């Protein structure tokens, strides 16, 4: 097993990881973004609190992520938790008989209140707005919903959905078996990727690391050589 790499601490305070998202002190710009969204936060007290917590965590995730990895471009808490998210991630798109890898995706996230109390289909949360012609077994043309599994349990955290989306788009997690009982959204893409498994994943870079972090040998190995 690969040793766990340490993550630089300069962004977002001393601790940097998903477990400490709630402790991240938002920068003034992000705090202002949060306040703007909270101005229209509506629903029952429980739901308002939950939407606030999720958006706070999304903004904290934006803050601790490497530059260009993740941005909350817009957020609306009027009814559902809605956000437009920009991800710095490798995304395969159809280009003739081959694929072109695009390094940026814009996702529409919609998290309804009912997700708190019942499982929803894996494609219930994200729609890929850009780029178009995404060539993945888990993405269906033309609406481009992104399927993250057969079922996503009640009250799943939005930060988990973002990481799952990152893994699915970069093909760090992928299901190309078109005969799987759960099915795939794009059978043609699944068959194409079965023939091109050597190109999977498109990136090995974890969400909270940079490409440079991945290229560097892990510290534990450096010490012993």
């Amino acid at each position: 097993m690969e040793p766990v790499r340490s993550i630089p601490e300069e962004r977002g305070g001393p601790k940097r990881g998903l477990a400490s998202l709630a402790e991240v002190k938002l920068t003034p710009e992000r705090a202002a973004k949060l306040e703007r969204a909270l101005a229209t936060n509506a629903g029952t007290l429980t739901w308002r609190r939950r939407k606030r917590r999720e958006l706070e965590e999304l903004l904290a995730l934006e803050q601790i992520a490497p530059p260009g990895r993740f941005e909350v471009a817009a957020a609306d808490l009027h009814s559902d938790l809605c956000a437009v998210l920009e991800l710095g991630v490798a995304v395969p798109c159809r280009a003739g008989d081959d694929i072109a890898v695009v390094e940026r995706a814009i996702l529409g996230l919609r998290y309804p209140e009912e997700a708190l109390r019942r499982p929803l289909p894996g494609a219930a949360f994200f729609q890929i707005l850009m780029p178009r012609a995404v060539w993945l077994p888990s993405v269906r043309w033309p609406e481009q919903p992104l399927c993250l599994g057969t079922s996503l349990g009640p009250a799943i955290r939005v930060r988990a959905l973002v990481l799952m989306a990152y893994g699915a788009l970069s093909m760090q997690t992928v299901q190309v078996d078109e005969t799987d009982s759960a099915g795939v959204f794009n059978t043609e893409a699944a068959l194409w990727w079965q023939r091109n498994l050597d190109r999977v994943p498109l990136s090995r870079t974890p969400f909270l690391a940079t490409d440079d972090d991945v290229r560097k040998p892990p510290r534990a190995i450096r010490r012993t050589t």
Partner: protein
Amino acid sequence: MSPRAESPRTAERASLREVTLPRKAAGARRAPIEARFPPFESVGGPPVAESIDRFAALRVAAVGAGSIGYAEIRAIARHQPAGITIIDPARIKPESLVTHDVLADSLGARKATLAGLAAKRISPGTEVFVFDGPIQALGEDALADIDVVLLASDNLAAEVHTGQVCINLGIPLIQASLHGEGLVVQVRAFENRAGSGPCPACAYGAAEWDHVARESEFRCAGAGGRPEEIRHVEPTVSTPALGMNAASLALVQLTRLVLGLGQSVVDTSVLYCGVSHRTMVWRLKRNSDCPCEHQRFTRVAAPRRVSELGIRDLAAAAGIGPDPLPADLTLAVDDLVFVEATVCCADEPRPVGRFFPEYAVVGSCAQCSATLHAEGFFACRQVSGRLVDADSTLGELGAGAARYVVLRAGDAAYFIH
């Protein structure tokens, strides 16, 4: 984009079906209930005639018609209520003969239909409606006229959903359950007069929510990308006596609730354990972390069919409009989704601004001709009022078959139908 004027799936929407009997059976005489009804006056209850009248006016829904629910339905039918609505998606299996009070010639029958026929035969004057599907498939209006719900489901998702609808509509809920190897039966009664009370999900811990998560999986094989839900429900392991015991206890609690006998049963749990031979009673408490929407809707009678109303009419009916409309106004129209826009070849989303059944065809892309469906980021059940054309009726916006609307503003919610 060429949006369709009307929803194509309107005719397929889940709804209740009335049970009728063959002409000969339909002519059966009403049993003389007054000959056997106890005089509860001696324990502070109403006179016999009034007691019978209270049951005769009662409309009961039974969610679950299995080992407990089937016995409950037959028992409540003997009270000759005004109506019984039965909801269960399952069929009678060979092993059902071990726990259900049914005969072998019922194998393969739909439980809800079978229970409905039994109820109708017992009480021909009762209006009996059935739905052979999961309660989640029905709109909230299916329970709108119900006075009390009997819940006896082995499906936690159905339990959560039923509890949610009963909170929203302010319907008392009596839930019966059992634990086979412990010889335990439990009946919980939820008042739901205010949304602030407890619900079935309030008692859930991590194990129960994990169970809810594992009960459902979705396959993306349905038409138009509609996910097909596969439910994995663990069957009830029990003896028949335990199921009947739970049903009988639930009916005793119902009788106490309807006639106001003894100490109040609302928001209480009664548990009998056959192994320890003890009975326990305690008050149910609201869990402030419960993810259910603990809000009772204010019921509003629509001045006309809701499809003939616009957003201003709806706000006026609810007493929160029409001018100005509350800034935080949202509305959910029946089981429809509002499609704000579609995304395809164009750089910008193309506006739609209409209601559709979820996953229905919305139109086609003007550039690539791809068929576009009502799903994704720009489609939602609960839509902000500022996105809906205030000068059009819901019918003009695609919701011609809408049966009800839930309007929300501030801390209030209104059920208009």
